[in-house]
């Protein structure tokens, strides 16, 4: 057993670390040495930044003021200025939106003048507005649009218009 172990040991002694390891370690050693030499670089840079930031603003010496020349001048007549009255702020009232004309509905080719009638508010599908060539607004297509319906004396709908301000 001792003989076999000796032979095994002789073979094992030939084992060495990979050749590239020495180069890797020497590279790290050089880098470490360089960092140690440049230890002052970081504090120096920080100090330079601080100096730049804290540099006092250059002060300009004030120009010498000339001695005042005293002259006797006749006082000007005092003029009392008129009080300036600020104009009142006028808030412009919103202009009333003119209602759209009624559009004839149904069998009526035109909305004829009627002696008495009623205007009622209702909601109709936007598709209805579109079918009469009326503006459908910017709202959702599925949402109904508010309109005013003109009812004649007999209760039939004569005309329709969108509610003023409808968009």
């Amino acid at each position: 057993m001792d003989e076999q172990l000796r032979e095994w040991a002789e073979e094992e002694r030939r084992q060495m670390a990979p050749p590239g390891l020495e180069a890797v370690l020497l590279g790290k050693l050089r880098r470490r040495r360089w960092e140690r030499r440049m230890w002052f670089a970081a504090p120096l840079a920080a100090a330079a930044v601080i100096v730049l930031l804290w540099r006092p603003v250059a002060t300009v010496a004030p120009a010498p003021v000339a001695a005042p020349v005293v002259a006797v001048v006749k006082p000007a007549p005092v003029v009392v200025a008129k009080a300036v009255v600020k104009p009142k702020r006028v808030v412009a009232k919103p202009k009333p939106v003119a209602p759209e004309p009624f559009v004839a509905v149904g069998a009526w080719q035109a909305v004829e003048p009627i002696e008495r009638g009623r205007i009622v508010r209702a909601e109709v599908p936007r598709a209805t507005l579109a079918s009469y060539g009326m503006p459908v607004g910017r709202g959702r297509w599925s949402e109904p649009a508010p309109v005013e319906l003109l009812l004649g004396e007999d209760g039939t709908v004569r005309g329709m218009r969108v509610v003023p301000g409808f968009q």
Partner: protein
Amino acid sequence: MVNRTDEELLPALAKGDEAAFTVVYRRRQGAIYRYALQMTGSAETASEVTQEVFLALMRQGSGLSAERGSVMSWLYAVARRQVLKLLAVERRYEAMGEDEVGPMVDPREEFESADLRAQLRALIPTLPPAYREVLALCVVEEMTYGEAARIAEVPEGTIRSRLHRAKAMLAERLAPAARRMA
């Protein structure tokens, strides 16, 4: 510089002298690598351990002194710590106990035509780490029991008994193959 001892090179090492580092590295890398190789069974891991050991020498070389022990002992101590850490992490081996036996290898299955030396080479990695360690230090590196004991941090008597048991274990496992070959 080549003729100077490791301890004499310590001041130059502390200053980061490249030549001194190269001398110490070339002198000691083989032993550290072989120790790590025996303990881990992996060439890649052994390279990593060797690298860590010499990086530690770079970083802590200034703190070493001849009075506190030899550079070689210090390198082994660092290597041993690294190896134990790796073994604990990888769970390759449960413990460094003496009575634990590694997986058995049947020489008849794997080495029908191989000689006893090849079978011995295959059997050694199956020994418990404590036995592999004593083989690496006392047999491969030819250290004295005292030197091995300082590195393994056990009494000399323990080193002696571990070596004896390692040899007995190998002989026992090799016996069937030896009889067959005879």
